[in-house]
């Protein structure tokens, strides 16, 4: 505990203390300007890292928010004489709001389309800032004077300390956010958006909130930027700046506060680097040496592809040559950015801090804080008593894909408190059926009722909120997290602290309680000892059990298990039957898709058999097993291949 405090918090405090002390020692206004810029860029890059790092989307719009924030502050102070605190708040608020507005449409997109949307937004912002002359003074630029703060005139040194203090606040708030449910949600939605939705954590709303938050930070940085330079021009916030900011985040290392800081340092220092030939040469040679060493090591160990090892060497080689041959390095600024960025993105995809963090983690092993004891199962999964009526009713359900009728008119009633089996040959429509029920697909026709209430259609998130939890045939775990975190993401009703308090670091008690609850569920499925194990290190069987625990964290009314025993070894299958029994004993209703007939026979109260997207039989397992059409279509006794059903296809199974 002490070691952790010393190593992790200690270095952070040391960093800020050092930075704060520099102006006391060095009185050069030039150095002070650089430091101020570094703090501002730090805030800006932490904001950008939210989308680029945590959401994993290329965001080309951050320069626009810098500009919008700067102009908000500039206009407020020049026109209405608003002071610094209000201007900062207003800039943050305006950019958060605009960010949310942009994110609402833009974050329905992924990858290139999202990048394009943000790029267009940037261009639109520049146009607007230039053209709204009555407000912004257009391309002539807007001059402002830094107002005093609480009656104190801000000298450059005081202003730097203000910026640094704000960076500190943002840093701490961001860390609190990331170590809360929000941080886990970001991680989860990048690993598997489908599972994130299915666990009732709205992927879309988290993305929008994250983007808005990052934009708001951009706005705050913009306001500081305005007070720092005291002169604004629309042309400052263009594509090139956005690329430089991306360079900062990628070079520093994504998903890391330290990375954003290192990136900011680089971005702030880069122009000076380029104007000093000797320094630039030294820098280029150092970069080349690094690329060479890393490349040779990668090739020898065969850990990288040849291109990945060689391309950075070539790029940095070009940089070295250029640094000696070309006099006007400033003219080649963009080209130099390009070469550096290229080398980093190709050769060091996790950035400088990502690389350093790995090395440091090997040197200093810091134990995570210990876990609380597991909560009582009754607290996590209260025992339910079955009602008399049906829990789930499906009527006339159809789902077609193009010409293929995967589900073709299915009626199904699942009684409360039962285990309802769903069997049928591959492609008979079982998976499609549960995908429709759980909201992944919108039904082509038909009704789905949960306790007599229509279930939301075509939204995993809403179906999950309504009480349906599921596992996936092809595992959809959050592979970047530990077993415990996987369950914690899905915990229903565990996180009630409002966002501002979370940012202030007041969400820790509920975090402990959530850990205790998640631990109880892990113990239920027999994974109590694996809480801290990263998912990718779990055995395949353990991963299947973890998906069950995660689904249970939803405290669902209906639990859908999609081929939970697929690919399991026999002992695991036996254990799984036990676990399902234990879950069922809590009063949960379960729909079970399964191929192992013995599992079905052992567990299910009722079995429905599908073929060609239709129900061909239903009844107790022993009845169904003797049903002639079931034998013909599925179980495959002698004299097979009789029966009738339309052509159909379902989601393909992996074998």
């Amino acid at each position, binding site marked *: 505990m002490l070691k952790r405090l010393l190593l992790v918090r200690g270095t952070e405090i040391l960093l800020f203390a050092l930075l704060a002390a520099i102006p006391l020692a060095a009185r050069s206004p030039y150095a002070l300007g650089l430091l101020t810029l570094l703090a501002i860029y730090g805030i800006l890059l932490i904001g950008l890292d939210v989308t680029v790092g945590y959401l*994993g989307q*290329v965001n080309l719009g951050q320069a626009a928010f810098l500009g919008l924030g700067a102009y908000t502050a500039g206009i407020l102070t020049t026109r209405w004489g608003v002071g610094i605190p209000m201007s900062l708040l207003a800039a943050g608020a305006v950019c958060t709001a605009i960010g949310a507005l*942009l994110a*609402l*449409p*833009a974050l*329905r*997109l992924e*990858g*290139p*389309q999202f*990048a*394009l*949307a943000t*790029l*267009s*937004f940037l*261009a*639109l912002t520049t*146009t*607007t800032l*230039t*053209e709204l002359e009555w407000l912004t003074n257009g391309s002539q630029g807007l001059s402002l004077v830094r107002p005093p703060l609480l009656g104190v005139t801000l000298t450059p040194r005081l202003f730097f300390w203000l910026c640094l203090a704000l960076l500190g606040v943002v840093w701490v708030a961001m860390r609190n956010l990331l170590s809360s449910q929000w941080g886990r949600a970001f991680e989860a939605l990048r690993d598997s958006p*489908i599972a994130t939705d299915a666990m009732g954590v709205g992927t879309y709303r988290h993305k929008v909130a994250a983007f808005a938050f990052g934009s708001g930070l951009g706005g705050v940085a913009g306001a500081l930027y305005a007070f720092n330079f005291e002169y604004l021009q629309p042309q400052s916030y263009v*594509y090139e700046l956005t*690329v430089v900011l*991306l360079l900062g985040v*990628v070079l520093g290392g994504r998903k890391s506060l330290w990375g954003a800081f290192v990136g900011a340092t680089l971005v702030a220092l880069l122009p000076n680097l380029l104007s000093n030939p000797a320094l630039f040469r030294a820098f280029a040679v150092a970069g080349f040496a690094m690329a060479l060493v890393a490349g040779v090591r990668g090739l020898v160990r065969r850990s990288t*592809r040849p*291109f*990945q090892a060689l*391309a950075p060497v070539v790029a940095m080689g070009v940089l070295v040559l250029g640094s000696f041959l070309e006099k006007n390095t400033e*003219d*080649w*600024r*963009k*080209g*130099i*950015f*390009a*070469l550096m*960025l*290229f080398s980093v*993105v*190709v050769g060091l*995809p996790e950035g400088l801090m990502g690389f350093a963090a790995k090395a440091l983690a090997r040197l200093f092993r810091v134990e995570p804080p210990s876990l609380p004891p597991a909560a009582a199962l009754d607290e996590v999964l209260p025992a339910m008593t079955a009602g008399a009526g049906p829990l789930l009713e499906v009527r006339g359900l159809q789902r077609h*894909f193009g010409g293929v009728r995967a589900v073709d008119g299915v009626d199904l009633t699942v009684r409360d408190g039962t285990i309802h089996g769903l069997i049928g040959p591959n492609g008979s429509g079982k998976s499609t059926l549960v*995908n429709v029920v759980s909201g*992944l*697909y919108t039904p082509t026709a038909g009704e789905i009722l949960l306790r007599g209430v229509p279930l939301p259609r075509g939204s995993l998130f809403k179906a999950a909120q309504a009480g349906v939890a599921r596992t*996936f*045939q*092809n595992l*959809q775990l959050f592979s970047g997290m530990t077993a415990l975190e996987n369950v914690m993401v899905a915990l229903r009703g565990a996180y009630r602290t409002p966002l501002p308090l979370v940012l202030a670091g007041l969400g820790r008690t509920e975090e402990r309680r959530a850990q205790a609850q998640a631990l109880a569920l892990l113990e239920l499925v027999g994974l109590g000892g694996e809480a801290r194990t990263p998912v990718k290190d779990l055995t395949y069987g353990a991963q299947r059990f973890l998906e069950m625990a995660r689904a249970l964290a939803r405290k669902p009314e209906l639990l859908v298990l999609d081929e939970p025993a697929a690919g399991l070894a026999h002992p695991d299958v036996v254990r799984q039957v036990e676990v399902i029994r234990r879950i069922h004993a809590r009063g949960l209703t379960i729909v079970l898709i399964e191929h192992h007939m013995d599992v079905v026979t052992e567990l299910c109260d009722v079995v429905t058999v599908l073929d060609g997207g239709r129900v061909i039989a239903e009844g107790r397992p022993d009845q169904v097993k003797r049903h002639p059409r079931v034998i013909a279509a599925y179980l495959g006794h002698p004299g097979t291949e009789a029966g009738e059903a339309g052509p159909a296809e379902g*989601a393909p199974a992996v074998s």
Partner: protein
Amino acid sequence: MPFSIVAQIAVSGALMGLVYALVAYGFQLTYATSKSINFGQGELVMVSAFVSLTLINTGLPYWAVVPLGLLFGALLGLVVERTAVRLALEQKSEGWILLSIIVGLFFFSAAENIWGRDDRPFPTPIPSAPIRILGVEVTGLEISVLVGVLAIMGIIEVFKRKTLMGKAFEAVSADSDAARLMGVSASHTVMLSYALSGLVAAVAGILVSPITTVGPTMASAMILKAFSVAVVAGLDSGFGVVLVGVVLGALEGLASLYIGSGWREAPGLVLLILALAVRPTGVFGKSVIRKV
């Protein structure tokens, strides 16, 4: 305002819109095979134009320069594929977005330093004197844009529909694993698509240069609108880009007429963000089915 002026501006705008459509078509070509696009496509347009201009200045006749310029564009496309796209595709990451921006940035910087930052005229034998058609004046250059854009898109569409290689192209786009099982090399197809996309960018550069002049920033505005066109039309509809491009071009002309010339860029950007709000896969795009 007299109708004839409005019509005149709309038509000129629409013809410019065809160039956006052509660049957007270049995005579709690569998106079809690899689900990736070159964010530095504007630099390809610009560098191809500069190279063609240099060739013309060495005394080569225009009609000999055109094929050389196109060849150069195709080569640049291959360079982008090799440096920016292939590794990311192999790793199934979206690194290509950043990398293609980076490669574009490098081309931009190189062009600035090799050819200077000034805009230069691009000589052409095509007459620039206006012809009156239905009360609207159209210049020979504008007609060359119309003919050039439709011709190159037509040729590529014929290639895609009528040759087995072209069908393979579509097969890779439909299901690249299944296409590999037919013996179609997915990586070669991706290379081919990038070469074609570079070629299309070069066509755009050569067609538009005589009108806009040649300079490092000649394509920076154009590329944004091409992005808008591609996203609004959807990344898989060749017909859609032409329609959206023409409409957008006309709208732009009208916007600068009615609101002010500074707002030229606005319609495309607003259209883009609106279209995304309504139909994320594009107006002519196909919706996707999520699989688990």
